């Protein structure tokens, strides 16, 4: 251990970058060099990184596909949709219950199809002669068996190639049924370069086909939507608990623990709060343009971040009653959080982490680690875009390449009847003067220390090298990375699905996370890797048997 510690000091970030690139063929090295950034961020300007570009064939990537982003991530957590995967069986099978997004369907008569997997299971004859007939029949069978309020169709790779018109089938069936909203997603896996394209396709269709469908008034005060929260390990439950305690009404979560009706009523909220910037910021924009609802970036990962986000919401609504209640809730929740933190801190302080996940968690979770004195040596996203690294100011300058071009951008206009700016210009201006930021996200880079290494679309080879060189106390990524890292003797926490356990959001979540990280980085287990005779192979003495 002592020798490796010493080694660590000798590596400069530039050395490390060089080491990561050394083995690649020149073309690959050139490409990867632009996605590996040594952070020299000063306070308000982030250096440029290349992101949201294709993965090099043959490189073992962490990324998945557009279908996974669409069906798995965005629509997976909505319990009363019948989600039919149109394609051969695999895609539907693998996305069946594997993401740990929880749902509360305990209400009397509540519908919950999340435990089911529906597929058209295309066979060779469907590929040769087209699968529209089978799809139509499958939709009919689903309708006859379940009578759901909505059926969603998801295209997998072959469907796009053979040219099935899933939208035409959906329209036909929707019109035929009359009481069931059937709509479709062209989320073939080859579109785009990662799951991110799938998020976009999913959100566009939800916006087009569902949002605004229910004009009934919703009860409650201080109405918000929570955008980009997927209730993994019950995060959404905890956030909802805290919001409720504060007196804030959550109309719709996109899409953790959600229902069709939540989406349909989303235009009834007065503020949109964006958690995962990557997967959904454009929906916030569209909701603003069409219905006049402003949006802010929030973060409920980390106790301090939670408190800050609650205060931000209260400040937006600006009413004393809410402001006081939020303060009361924070005052009530924080002591027990602090108590756990104080207990854990002596054991975690000074330890180090690496985070390579998704499109926002690699940023958000740094707050939680910081709360227990742990610094982040290296981080990056699996499928984020430049704005998630460098901040939203780069959006106007983003290059539109062939892969982004095939993801539809909706043209949104103000709704002629329902557009309603939630606050007069002057009031918004006053808030902004007081430092309140709408539509604002600074990205991950500026929050990270100088000299840290930021890597986009990290792959297995680079991960292994990084861990060997920097020996972090914990590494965070997804299931595919988990065991190769752990074989190296470094604990690995999944931050997509959390392995097990959670929630980690909100106040209770912070406590859970502190304890979980304490368990991982201080576990005895990692000390058992070598047998005594491996540690001391020399036979220094012999027993004298008496």
């Amino acid at each position, binding site marked *: 251990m002592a020798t490796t510690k010493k080694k660590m000091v000798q590596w400069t970030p530039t050395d490390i970058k060089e080491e990561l690139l050394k083995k690649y063929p020149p073309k690959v090295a050139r490409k990867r060099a632009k996605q590996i950034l040594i952070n020299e961020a000063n306070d308000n300007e982030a250096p440029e990184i290349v992101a949201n570009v294709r993965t090099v064939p043959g490189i073992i990537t962490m990324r998945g596909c557009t279908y996974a982003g669409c069906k798995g991530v965005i629509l997976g957590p909505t319990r009363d949709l019948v989600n039919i995967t149109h394609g*051969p069986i695999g895609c539907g099978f693998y996305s069946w219950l594997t993401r740990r997004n929880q749902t509360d369907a305990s209400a009397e008569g509540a519908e919950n199809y999340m435990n089911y997997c529906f597929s058209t299971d295309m066979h060779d004859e469907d590929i040769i002669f087209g699968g529209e007939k089978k799809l139509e029949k499958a939709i009919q069978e689903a309708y006859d068996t379940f009578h759901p309020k909505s059926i969603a169709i998801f295209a997998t790779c072959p469907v796009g190639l053979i040219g099935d018109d899933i939208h035409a089938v959906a329209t036909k069936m929707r019109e035929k049924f009359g009481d069931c909203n059937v709509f479709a997603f062209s989320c073939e896996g080859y579109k785009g370069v990662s799951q991110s394209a799938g998020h976009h396709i999913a959100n566009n269709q939800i916006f087009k086909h569902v949002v605004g469908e229910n004009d009934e008034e919703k009860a409650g005060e201080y109405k918000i939507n929570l955008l980009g929260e997927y209730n993994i390990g019950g995060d959404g439950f905890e956030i909802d608990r805290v919001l409720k305690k504060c007196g804030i009404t959550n109309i719709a979560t996109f899409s953790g623990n959600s229902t069709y009706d939540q989406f349909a009523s989303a235009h009834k909220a007065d503020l949109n709060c964006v958690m995962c910037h990557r997967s959904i910021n454009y929906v916030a924009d569209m909701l603003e343009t069409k219905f006049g609802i402003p949006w802010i970036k929030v973060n409920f990962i980390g106790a301090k971040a939670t408190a800050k986000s609650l205060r931000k919401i209260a400040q937006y609504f600006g009413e004393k009653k809410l402001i006081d209640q939020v303060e009361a809730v924070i005052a009530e929740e924080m002591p027990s959080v602090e108590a756990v933190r104080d207990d854990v801190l002596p054991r975690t302080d000074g330890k180090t982490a690496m985070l390579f996940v998704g499109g926002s968690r690699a940023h958000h979770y740094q707050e939680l680690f910081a709360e227990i004195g742990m610094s982040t040596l290296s981080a990056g996203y699996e499928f984020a875009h430049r704005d998630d690294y460098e901040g939203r100011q780069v959006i106007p300058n983003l290059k539109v390449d062939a892969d982004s071009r095939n993801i539809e951008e909706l043209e949104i206009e103000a709704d002629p009847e329902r557009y309603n700016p939630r606050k007069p210009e002057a009031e918004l201006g006053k808030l902004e003067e007081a430092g309140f930021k709408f539509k604002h996200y600074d990205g991950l880079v500026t929050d990270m220390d100088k000299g840290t290494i930021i890597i986009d679309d990290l792959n297995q080879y680079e991960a292994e090298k990084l861990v060997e060189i920097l020996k972090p106390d914990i590494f965070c990524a997804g299931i*595919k990375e988990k065991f190769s890292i752990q074989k190296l003797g470094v604990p690995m926490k999944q931050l997509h699905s959390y392995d097990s356990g959670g929630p980690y959001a909100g106040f209770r979540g912070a406590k859970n996370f502190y304890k979980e990280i304490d368990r991982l980085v201080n576990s005895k287990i990692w000390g058992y890797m070598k047998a005594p005779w491996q540690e001391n192979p020399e036979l220094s003495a012999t027993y004298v048997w008496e």
Partner: protein
Amino acid sequence: MLLRHTPKEITERDALVINPAKTCQPIGAMYAALGIHGCLPHSHGSQGCCAYHRSTLTRHYKEPISAATSSFTEGASVFGGQANLIQAINNIFSVYEPEVIAVHTTCLSETIGDDLKQITIKATKDGKIPEGKHVIGASTPSYVGSHVTGFSNMVKSMAMQAEKTGTKNGKVNVIPGWVEPSDMEEIKRLAALVGVDITLFPDTSGVLNGPLSGEYHMFPEGGTTMTELKSTGDAVGTLALGEWCSADAARWLDSTHKVPCKVLDMPFGLSATDRFIDALRIAAGVTVPDEVAHERGQLVDMMSDMHQYFYNKKVALVGDPDQLIAMTEFLVSIDMCPVHIVTGTPGKKFEKRIRELTADMPFEVNVKAAGDMFLLHQWIKNDPVDLIIGNTYCKYIARDEDIPFVRWGFPILDRVGHQYFPTVGYKGGLRLLEKILMALLDRKDRDDPEETFELVL
């Protein structure tokens, strides 16, 4: 209720599959390829398939599963994936340095019509395959068959590496089929015990049940080597365990290299293991030592000791054809009654075989190939069972219907053990019975009224 929308009444469905009892070909090909020493499986298609297959295998084995992908985007999907694959081959040999790349196709590359053979020839011509390294391939369109078919296709590609020198190597080829690494280890142990020199392929033992030692090797010690695969053409014979998983490869060796083959059931349970040992002995011309009879006797002992708890208990089964056939025979042999049996893999032969095995059972039997778990659940609702045996997804049915459940098959995402403890052979039979008894007797202890609750069972 977890599956609250599943109605008792069964209606015809022929377009919509609900809760599948199978998955797609490439994952089987990937698993088989991991049983080649120094092999990196490669998925020729978009990166999503590969991500899904790796994730599922990782969750099942709790071990790193490395595999690469051609990462198709729209362009490759339209113009073909040759450039992607050649680039991938070059990158893989440069960065990961495997001995072998085992490429399998996906729905996407199959629909486009990419020709693996032709691409490999091009890669060789372009000098992208280093001296002494190999690229092998299998066509695995998921719109045909199931994960079992994909496994079988890759195993056949492994057999096709055989080269015949004309001199017999004195070994018996054993193709184990899609069983766990622990099972492969057990098959090797049994063969050694009987005194037969075998070439087992694929062999994932030592690959997917590795130790934690502070070191990570992308290519662990285990796996059938390319040299061993080459020499399968010189074997004295081949035993293929399982018609669905292994027969194609064995028959290919038989017809191409005149290595005589025998297709057996997978050695789960007493009789199937008996037949396996007997076939091994005959193929190699050896006498079976007493240790084997001793192990066998222990299994018979437990069968008789606990027979009262097995007798006439109804069981629902879901899984893959080869496993289910052997399991059905085993259950019937201890007077348990498998009454609902579903596989997602197509094949009328399966239904016929199950009907034969259950012909003398006192209850009516429902069996379906190309069925799904929704149907199985409906059958259970109409005719309840005492036990469910199947993969992890069964736990939703087991909980809703309050039925004891033994996890066996693929995938098992929520328990461990299958990596380490075999269920093949006589010892494996003991483990299966132990698991079944545990489930049944735990339930009895939970449910027996206080006045009849008993210490000794």
